[in-house]
């Protein structure tokens, strides 16, 4: 056990050293040496970091309610224990689908279907910054990418929620029912407060996976790597770090490669901050 723990830590440190050593030449690289025609490393990294967070936040926002809902349906609201187990198995299957398949689905099925919705959103809610500007004719937007990633992070989030719901002390549940609570009131008073840290932890795990999601985003998103924009239905979207590395690496050489490795380091740092923040929130929830 101890050996495994040390091995994991060593791998992590090894990856960090690799990223720092091989990426460092890019931090001082000037115009003409970096991909995406960037002037310096910050100008390259900032829009991509924004894009990564933007896609991840959209995915998290879309997946949060369904995840909690599915987990409730599988535990508290399940008409029979067998139904709950069945739902759990279906979610696990969803987690087993490779991301390139989700990418294909997003590209060929979801994106075209979304076009009329985006046109409608633009016509009726165009005053919001998210829906201003011309909607994409192919549907390959940041919102579509967020939807695909939301489907991908749903299983892990739902599984975390399900486990923490199942841990609600039966005494609390029975006490709530004894006071005359309906099932929904019981859920609100007994299940959700106890499971709060589990829900947050699930969200953070989901966010971590969303940040690193590569293939599905690279395939679905129509990316403009140097753009920071809140518009979610345009054909000009910020790219994400992972997708940018995947699409740029095969034909890159020299300083462009170190820039991509440097971007990996940035993503590593973002993930680290997100997971530390997640742990803090989860701990606070648990203390209450």
């Amino acid at each position, binding site marked *: 056990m101890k050996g495994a723990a040390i091995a994991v830590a060593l791998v992590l440190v090894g990856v960090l050293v690799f990223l720092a050593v091989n990426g460092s030449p890019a931090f001082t690289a000037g115009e003409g040496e970096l991909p995406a*025609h960037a002037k310096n490393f910050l100008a390259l990294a900032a829009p991509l970091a924004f894009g990564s967070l933007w896609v991840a936040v959209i995915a998290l926002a879309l997946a949060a309610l369904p995840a909690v809902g599915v987990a409730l349906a599988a535990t508290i609201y399940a008409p029979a224990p067998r139904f709950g187990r069945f739902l759990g198995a279906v979610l696990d299957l969803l987690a087993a689908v490779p991301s390139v398949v989700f990418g294909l689905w997003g590209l060929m099925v979801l994106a075209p279907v979304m076009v009329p919705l985006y046109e409608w959103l633009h016509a009726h809610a165009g005053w919001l910054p998210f829906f201003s500007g011309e909607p994409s004719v192919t549907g390959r937007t940041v919102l579509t990418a967020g939807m695909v990633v939301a489907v991908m992070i749903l299983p892990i989030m739902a599984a975390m929620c399900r486990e923490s719901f199942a841990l609600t002390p039966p005494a609390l549940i029975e006490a709530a029912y004894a006071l005359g609570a309906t099932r929904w009131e019981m859920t609100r008073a007994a299940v959700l407060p106890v499971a709060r840290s589990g829900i947050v932890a699930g969200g953070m795990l989901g966010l971590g996976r969303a940040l690193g999601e590569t293939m599905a985003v690279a395939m679905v998103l*129509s990316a403009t790597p140097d753009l920071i924009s809140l518009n979610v239905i345009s*054909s000009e979207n910020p790219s994400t770090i992972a997708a940018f590395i995947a*699409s740029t690496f095969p034909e890159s050489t020299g300083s462009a490669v170190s820039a991509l490795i440097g971007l990996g380091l940035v993503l590593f740092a973002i993930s680290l901050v997100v997971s530390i923040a997640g742990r803090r929130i989860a701990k606070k929830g648990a203390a209450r």
Partner: protein
Amino acid sequence: MKLGTSKRAVAAAAATGVIWAALAGCAANEEQPSGEITPNSSGPAQAQLQGELNGAGASSQSAAQEAWRAGFVALQNGVTVNYDPVGSGDGRKQFTAGGIGFVGTDAPFSVEDAGGGHGSCAADSSLVEVPVYISPIAVAFNLEGIDSLNLAPNVIADIFTGKIANWNDAAIAADNPGVELPDLKISPVHRSDVSGTTGNFTDYLAATAPEAWTAGETEEWPQAGGEGAEKTQGMVQALTAGKGSIGYVDAGQARDLGWAAIKVGDEWAKPTAEGAAKAVAVSSLESGRGEGDVVYELNRATDAAGAYPLILVSYLAACEKYEDANTAELVSAYLKYVTSDEGQQAAAANAGSAPLTADAELSAKVSAAVERIGS
């Protein structure tokens, strides 16, 4: 834990076995006496060769190389041909370091490097380079009921820079009398990955419409705006799905879309095999190169009738002289097959390229260069 260890041991043993087998294979090859070709008595009139031929280089050729390898091995079943699509730059490095028989490359060796000193060749050998893979790039669009439009280079540049934003723009209408252009937003699509197709497309625009296209030649799309798509299939998908979209893609991959005819001189040219081969043939040979070094300086701004200068050209480079006679025979036979009409048609069927044999003048020059390979 115990099980894990034993599994690992088995895997390691297996891996070692594979490596040993590979080493043994290499050694066997090297020991083969040079100059000896074992003729296959039961074979057809053509001399039957034996041995292994290794190549590496441009990934743009990989589909064509697959077709060539299959076709060549069908004729010469004692031969194994390998092609490792490591990229043009790495392929050229491997060739200079020695160890491979030929290299596929999108950019030919520079004039200085073409002279000699390549590890794969005999000491005093110069290079043979021939264009083998010519692929016309189509400016493809998705407009209902329209499958052909005339687009001049400066109009194409203005569309991709966003200056022309609607299909009913006067500049498009002026070149397309009689075509009912819809009132529809133009959605230009570019490749979001680093791509040779983008390089050739921007090179074409820079040469033919320098005022409208100021970004020059670049393999990475140079500006913000427009839709980005990943790889050729992503481009085709985006064009197929998006009404009013326009993009650039290997013509062989975009058969269901509308194709623009581009302006060449005073005429309008659509991507065709003949036009693509012709565009190479009417370009001038790069000066300062040897006789077997058939490298063209593509004249994108040509006004030759029937030429289609928006093309991607990829070369095969080999040695004029090899140390090893068998390797020389193999390379010579392989390149003869690749540049033959049969080989070029096989690539056209598998990779959608334009057969260079569509232009007799070009074909003759290439054949003469390939004849120089020997030992």
